[in-house]
């Protein structure tokens, strides 16, 4: 029966993709792992989240914890006191974005929240001055302090007190008040709430410190940057105030955000679809503003465009636009993030990241305990 024989042979040919397990056809693999940036719009932006997306093909799309742990990688590109850039590979955008969101709005820092004005006859209004003070980054580790709630008494564990007392003498030039003039008061507030009832009583101040902060902290507190302008004073003007800093998070007010900003971008991938040679190569190299392409000299004296610096690509899409046939394809790797953290100084960026991850863990733990 020759007919049957041909049929079974055909079936076998059809079976071939199933035999190669854990391997998707190329076009699906591309859709799964890359975002393709066409001239008009990016495509395949969603990806395949569902574990059974390829179940009919016998391919498992689920990500177990083991698989994640095996594939996850971090490579640090640059690390300074207040700046860090690293590659996070093998993680989904949802989790990378959770880290970014937590860094910006949920990692706590210390910032000036209450200002007690004793004297201010400068041109800058009290509320504006207070706002400016609030935005000054403080050199205080928030992990050493506790949150203060509305009914709490300010003490050495939840409040930092700073004093600012500057005046411009008459018949002198105008002076600029810089953040370096903020003086830390480790013993707490010096302003009295009311006159003592009896002369022997200890004056009641706005804080009740039971011990000096010098004893509980390893290093003296101050401001991170000494050259921030707070105000300018003319002859005869003066500012005298006390500023109380407390612990808070960025979702209440941006002054508590520990990062100038934190962001990520997916790794750009530039692919030359078909050889670009001769004058076209020159044209392609000149099109790119950030010099992604280089010219390679060929043995026969010709020239060829090659991708030299894909990371520099800003996705301006200049190289994929135009009426000509598509030479280049711009893609982004879906699970490779170039993550950048700019710290404002209270904690180094690598510590901030660790703290952010811890906060996500705490969130999970909270919901688990609520469910049980």
């Amino acid at each position, binding site marked *: 029966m020759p007919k049957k024989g041909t049929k079974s042979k055909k079936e076998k040919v059809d079976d071939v993709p199933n035999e190669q397990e854990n391997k998707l056809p190329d076009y699906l693999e591309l859709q799964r792992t890359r975002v393709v940036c066409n001239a008009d719009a990016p495509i395949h932006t969603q990806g395949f989240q569902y*574990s059974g997306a390829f179940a009919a093909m016998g391919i498992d799309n689920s990500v177990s914890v083991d698989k994640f*742990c095996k594939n996850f990688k971090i490579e*640090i590109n640059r*690390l300074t006191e207040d700046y860090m850039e690293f590659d996070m590979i093998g993680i989904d955008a949802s989790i990378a*974005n959770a880290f970014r969101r937590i860094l910006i709005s949920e990692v706590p820092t210390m910032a000036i929240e209450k200002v007690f004005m004793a004297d201010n006859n400068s041109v800058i209004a009290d509320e504006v001055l207070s706002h400016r003070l609030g935005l000054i980054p403080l050199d205080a580790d928030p992990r050493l302090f506790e949150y203060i709630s509305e009914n709490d008494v300010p003490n050495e564990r939840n409040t930092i007190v700073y004093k600012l007392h500057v005046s411009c003498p008459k018949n002198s030039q105008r002076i600029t008040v810089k953040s370096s003039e903020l003086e830390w008061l480790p013993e707490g507030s010096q302003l009295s709430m009311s006159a003592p009832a009896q002369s022997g009583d200890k004056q009641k101040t706005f804080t009740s410190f039971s011990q000096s902060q010098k004893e509980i902290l390893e290093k003296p507190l101050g401001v991170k940057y000494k050259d921030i302008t707070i105000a300018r004073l003319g002859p005869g003007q003066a500012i005298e105030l006390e500023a109380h800093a407390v612990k808070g998070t960025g979702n209440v007010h941006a002054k508590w955000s520990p990062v100038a900003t934190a962001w990520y971008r997916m790794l750009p991938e530039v692919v030359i679809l078909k050889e670009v040679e001769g004058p076209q190569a020159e044209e392609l190299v000149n099109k790119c503003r950030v010099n992604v392409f280089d010219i390679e000299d060929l043995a026969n004296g010709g020239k060829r465009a090659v991708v030299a610096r894909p990371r520099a690509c800003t996705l301006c899409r200049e190289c994929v636009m135009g009426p000509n046939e598509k030479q280049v394809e711009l893609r982004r790797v879906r699970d490779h993030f170039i993550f950048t953290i700019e710290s404002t100084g209270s904690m180094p960026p690598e510590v901030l990241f660790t703290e952010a991850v*811890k906060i996500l863990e705490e969130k999970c733990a909270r919901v688990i305990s609520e*469910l049980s």
Partner: protein
Amino acid sequence: MEHGSLTDSTSSTFSIMDEDHTLANSARFVLNQDPRVAFCGYTIPHPSEKKVNIRLQTTGDAAKDVLKDALQNLMIMCQHVRGTMDTAVVNHRAKNAAEEMDVDQN
């Protein structure tokens, strides 16, 4: 808070207070990777209300247990991320220190 029927434990909506996209989107990702999950999605009913609803339908297991497992997995992933970051920082510092020493010698 869990909204589900008493007779069918396989589909539930979980109402979580004081949470937002940060947790819900990560949880949705982890849940969708779980083969026991038939459907999972989340919504924030009103942007000024600090509340997120996570809808979860499973293929047979109790929705509550599946959600708990997913959050547990997310925690393990976080711990792994933290560990990886710590080693990456140590390695980076060691590498940089070595490079600086090379510069000094030259």
